[in-house]
């Protein structure tokens, strides 16, 4: 049976339960996609301090303790450049041999890992600071994911990053499942109750459209065309809201729109929306992916980007990335 891609997205949206349970759910959902018979391992990662990377407790899917040990040893042996380069700036799904080459990987694997492992698949969901989680699977063959697979996982991972951010802003589990967010919608997308900026007619229309797309993605389409289903269910609404499910005591389902704006802390003289776009472009994301991540149209993304580039006096996306690098690490 083919593994279900939307299950990974849905696992990200589980708001009840502890962080450990959330990571376990995510690992279980990613598991069937990348498992090669050696188990699948999930862990939180924090590479914000680029000197080293902190790896949290490991969640296992059909796991083996020998690998858990190898994961900690390997990560402890990473140099700061390796952390900076391979965990911060990498595609959402990749393999270790792709990041560092076959020769270097073999060398590292022979030092720390059980024998017979030739590569390691990784799904990495980290924000612009390098904070997030990874789910990895040892492989006994050298592998590379196709562009098509990478494209769809970039989108899946955008949901994981958004929901980790939401969990971070609502740390209390009780609060997470009870908060009514900025808007309450029916499964059909009718706004039943709205606060603040969600009250305007245009906000209501955007939320409704997003709710409908989300329902359609989770309908028969998820089996017929999983990639299209993922494409349809975008990671955010209008750069601002995340929509999550809520069941009341009678088992009735509602949708809750939580305010969940990505922070973009660079000290650049830009508007919030411009900074959100700039941060993502500087991570090497395409305009289409940025549109998906923020829930904006591709036209808006390119307009925000153009204005920002003009304000900053830049002429290329690489220069933009270099500027954001400088802003992130205060130079001496």
């Amino acid at each position, binding site marked *: 049976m083919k593994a279900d891609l939307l299950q990974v997205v849905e696992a990200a949206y589980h708001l009840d339960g502890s962080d450990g349970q959330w990571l376990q759910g995510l690992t279980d959902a990613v598991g069937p996609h990348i498992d090669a018979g050696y188990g699948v391992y999930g862990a939180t990662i924090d590479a914000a301090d680029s000197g080293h990377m902190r790896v949290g407790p490991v969640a296992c899917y059909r796991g083996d303790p020998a690998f858990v040990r190898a994961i900690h040893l390997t990560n402890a042996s990473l140099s700061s450049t390796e952390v900076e*380069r391979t965990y911060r700036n990498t595609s959402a799904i990749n393999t270790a041999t792709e990041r560092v080459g076959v020769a270097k990987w073999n060398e590292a694997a022979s030092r720390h890992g059980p024998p017979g492992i030739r590569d390691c698949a990784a799904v990495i969901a980290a924000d612009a600071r390098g904070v997030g989680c990874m789910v990895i699977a040892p492989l006994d063959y050298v592998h590379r994911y196709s562009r098509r697979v990478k494209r769809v996982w970039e989108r899946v991972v955008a949901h994981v990053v958004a929901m980790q951010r939401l969990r971070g802003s609502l740390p209390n589990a009780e609060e997470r499942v009870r908060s009514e967010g900025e808007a309450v919608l029916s499964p059909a997308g009718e706004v039943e109750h709205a606060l603040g900026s969600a009250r305007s007619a245009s906000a209501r229309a955007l939320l409704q459209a997003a709710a409908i797309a989300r329902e359609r993605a989770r309908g028969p389409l998820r089996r017929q065309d999983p990639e299209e289903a993922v494409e349809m269910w975008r990671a955010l609404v209008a750069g601002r809201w995340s929509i999550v499910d809520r069941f009341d005591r009678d088992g009735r389902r509602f949708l809750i729109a939580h305010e969940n704006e990505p922070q973009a802390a660079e000290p650049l003289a830009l508007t919030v929306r411009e900074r959100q776009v700039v941060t993502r472009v500087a991570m090497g994301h395409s305009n289409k992916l940025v549109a998906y991540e923020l829930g904006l149209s591709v036209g808006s993304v390119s307009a925000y980007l153009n204005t920002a580039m003009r304000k900053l006096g830049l002429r290329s996306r690489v220069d933009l990335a270099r500027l954001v690098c400088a802003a992130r690490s205060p130079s001496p």
Partner: protein
Amino acid sequence: MKRGRSPAAVRDRAAGLHVLPFAFGGGRFAVLVEELDAGVLPDTITVAEREVGLLVRRGFSNLEIALGRGTSERTVANQISSLMRKVGAGSRVQLALRLGAVPVPLPAK
């Protein structure tokens, strides 16, 4: 032919610097750039790709790189896509970051 063309392509590895011959506007220059940190890159990268990579991470365009190196723009584009494949970068920006993009200071306000 390739070997004789650029005697200036001296690599001062001890200093971690790399001298790149560069022709621009009729003149010949040498650009001094920091070496790539080879420790985190696949060793299948060729010398030409490495030199192109050094310029990509400094924000040069394909045309500028081609003019500077005296090759065609198409050659540069091919070298870049081959680099992207080898390091697993999905975009030019990601390539620049993977090679260690050289930060530029914030604009003065």
